[in-house]
């Protein structure tokens, strides 16, 4: 299977929703890990080590192929500062996936593999006519990383690994209503930005140390990639004709940072049936200062003499983000119940990178608590992993006065509360 056909085959299976971790990060890279609160940096559970800690890959017992898919179901309640009925999202299910193939040398000195996963993504679709419609009506942000990986065991206790991270596919679709009024009964004026990111490279490196049978320690670093859209499409609908000269853009450029993540993890194996893990992730969200769109092109709506690249009378749109670096704490364990069945549980606490008064409809973020369950059953060389995550975001309120004070009045005043449920299933074949 070529990489390209692989990507095409998985075209329907993309990315996360209201993200499963802070900001627009999605941490659903391994089905076993998903059941254990997302730990994995200090462990060598399976081929997903390529994501969590490439250094641990040589320590993975078997060579194998595995695929996993998750169904992210976000449910949100929003109440406007101005009262009115509770708003709820349109119910979308999005399906972040992961795919790994890895093999090691007989002497277990070397291992290599390829990983495909979706570390960032976000899909939110608001109800028609909701209060924040002039900020956002919907976003669909997708990314697929492809990561060829190698790992080398320096000693039988210490190994290192690295992968070249390729942003193989990135796409964004962002839509909102425009606050101008047309003739009575005409639908809302609307703009849609749709673009694909250019291919970019980064890396993922890790080190793994297992001094005893009962303890392992790992560290990994995944570099930042700036997802860059050049020449994305700008489409207007329902803009009043008399305002055509203020809405002439046909193309946009934008850059979205996919931030670097540094992780530390510890694994405890008090007996051969029990594994416990504790991870800390540090995501450099502070690189996300503003979201800027540059507009160009001329659709002719304003006649021959009108200025090019206009969206609402301006050829640039900037919006303050001012994210802060954020930490996630994770704790999880698994227990081998019978020779075939393993059960898992875990929890995570995710500090939001979004400051008070900066919450946007596209990532209605807040500190989040995650609770996870999982199980695996192995028959022969085949295994099935199931996982379930329940993520509860804290209730978060911002008033119009907060927004004006923060110069963030391009978003909506009110209270958000979100919960996400993510069941997932994986299949693996080891040899």
């Amino acid at each position, binding site marked *: 299977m070529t990489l390209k056909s692989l990507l095409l085959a998985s075209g329907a299976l993309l990315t996360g929703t209201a993200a499963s971790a802070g900001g627009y990060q999605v941490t659903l890279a391994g089905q076993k890990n998903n059941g254990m609160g997302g730990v994995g940096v200090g462990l060598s559970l399976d081929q997903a080590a390529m994501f969590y800690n490439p250094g641990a890959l040589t320590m993975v017992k078997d060579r194998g192929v595995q695929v996993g898919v998750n169904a992210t179901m976000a449910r949100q*309640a929003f109440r*406007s500062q101005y009262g009115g009925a509770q708003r*709820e999202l349109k119910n979308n299910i999005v399906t972040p996936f992961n795919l790994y193939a890895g093999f090691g040398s007989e002497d277990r000195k070397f291992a290599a593999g390829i990983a495909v996963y979706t570390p960032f993504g976000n899909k939110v679709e608001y109800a028609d006519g909701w209060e924040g419609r002039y900020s956002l009506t919907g976003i669909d942000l997708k990314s697929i990383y492809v990561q060829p990986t190698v790992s080398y065991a320096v000693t039988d206790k210490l190994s290192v690994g690295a992968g070249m991270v390729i942003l193989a596919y990135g796409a964004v679709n962002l839509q909102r209503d425009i606050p101008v009024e047309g003739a009575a009964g005409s639908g809302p004026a609307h703009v849609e930005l749709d673009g694909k990111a250019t291919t970019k490279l980064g890396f993922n490196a890790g080190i793994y140390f297992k001094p005893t049978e009962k303890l392992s320690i790992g560290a990994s670093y995944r570099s930042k990639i700036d997802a860059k859209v050049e020449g994305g499409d700008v489409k207007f609908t329902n803009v009043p004709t008399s305002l055509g000269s203020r809405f002439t853009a046909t193309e946009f450029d934008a850059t979205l940072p996919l931030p670097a993540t540094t992780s530390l993890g510890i694994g405890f194996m008090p007996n051969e049936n029990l594994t416990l893990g504790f991870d800390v992730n540090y995501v450099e969200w502070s690189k996300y200062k503003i979201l800027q769109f540059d507009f160009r092109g001329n659709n002719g709506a304003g006649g021959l003499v009108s200025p090019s690249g206009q969206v609402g009378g301006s050829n640039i749109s900037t919006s303050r983000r001012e994210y802060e670096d954020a930490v996630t704490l994770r704790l999880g364990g698994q227990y081998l119940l019978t020779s075939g069945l393993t059960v898992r549980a875990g929890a995570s606490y995710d500090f939001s990178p979004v400051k008070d008064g900066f919450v946007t409809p596209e990532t209605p973020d807040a500190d989040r608590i995650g609770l996870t*369950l999982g199980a695996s059953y192995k028959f022969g060389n085949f295994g099935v992993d199931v996982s379930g995550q329940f993520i509860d975001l804290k209730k978060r309120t911002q008033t119009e006065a907060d*927004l004006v004070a923060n110069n963030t009045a391009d978003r909506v005043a009110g*209270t958000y509360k979100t919960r996400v449920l993510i069941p997932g299933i994986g299949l693996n074949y080891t040899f």
Partner: protein
Amino acid sequence: MYTLLKRTAPALALLGLGLAGCQPELDAPGADKGSADFSRYIAVGNSLTAGYGDNGLYLEGQLASYPNLLAEQFKTVGGGDFAQPLFNQPNQENGSGYLRLTGFTATGNPITANVTTNLAVRAITPQALYTRYDAPVNNLGVPGIKLADIQTPGYGSQVGNAYFERITPAANPLQTYFQRVKAEAATATFFTCWLGNNDVLGYATAGGALGPTAITRTDTFQLKANRIINVLTANGAKGVVATIPNVTNVPFFTTVRVAAIKATFKASNQALSLYIQTSAGVREATDADLLTLTSSSVIGTATSGNPFPVGAGISPTAANPLPSQFVLDASEQTLVRDATTAYNTALTAKANEKGLAVFDANAFFARIAATGIVSDAVNNTAAFISGNLFSLDGVHPTPRGYAVIANEMISAINSKYGSSLSQVNPNNYRGVRFP
């Protein structure tokens, strides 16, 4: 596989339960009437209270009048029905007629046209009279009324104010506005009172050309203000008194700028400048002079027998000065400002004496003019057309403008009476409609 299903069934069942219980619920904000009683609300006022906009009174504006928006919120805490003298007969929804935007000129100036179909005009002599509304009304907003007019007999007759005439009992055409309010106040439990704007507005929009007598004397204003507030509170009703905004903040005076006109003249001939007619003679205009919105249609037009287009000149004696009714010059602005300040002192003092809530419309409109007001990602300003808040006449608000006014009144009510009324969402009400 069977074992797997058996073993994981509880977890899967838990997932199913989890999804069902996943949808969060946020409690609706509580609503409490505090110490006020909104069961019968009446609105006393002028065009602003009637929902006038785009230089006319028509059904869409009436439905978005601030009293109607307030009444909707009052209903959540025991408020009763709120009747307005709507132009709701079939094919009469355009009421008095109004201005609509038809497009922009090549230089970006708005083009407007009068809506003349589906009017509610029932007679054209002795003046345009509108379809009568004889059912009871809670909204007593009468476009054009001055506080000085409230005790004028015949103001509601066919030769008086056509908007008052249509709600004045046909059998009693000499009933004054004051008498009508007194009758309505007898059963009212809550009121808003926003009168007095026209006591200075007419002078201002005519560029001061009517002379200082067009401004109601302060002693007259105070006398009438006291009388109407006394009668509104005579039965213990609570309410809101609104102050008078300084009209020089509205787009009618801030859209056509002296500097811009001068620049246009100089672009054609460096020697030209803008000259204006004032009560003290002809002089060059300064940035302190305000030009009316209506001046844009005369400035630069040709006058037969004068080599200069209207407004242009090279000296006070070699000019075609802009007539006085299009300019509110600095000294005229002082008269307007002083009258507004005196009126507001009188209104505030009386409201405080009666323990009423005060909506300081003057401070609010000044703030709108300085910083605008944001509503859910929409920046609303006092700019003409693009600012969303002022209608095409440059003086009266749009439905969006009336919504933000209603919100300010709700804030004043909540803080005075300890109520917790929700505000309305301004974005549910339109700004200017574009073709």
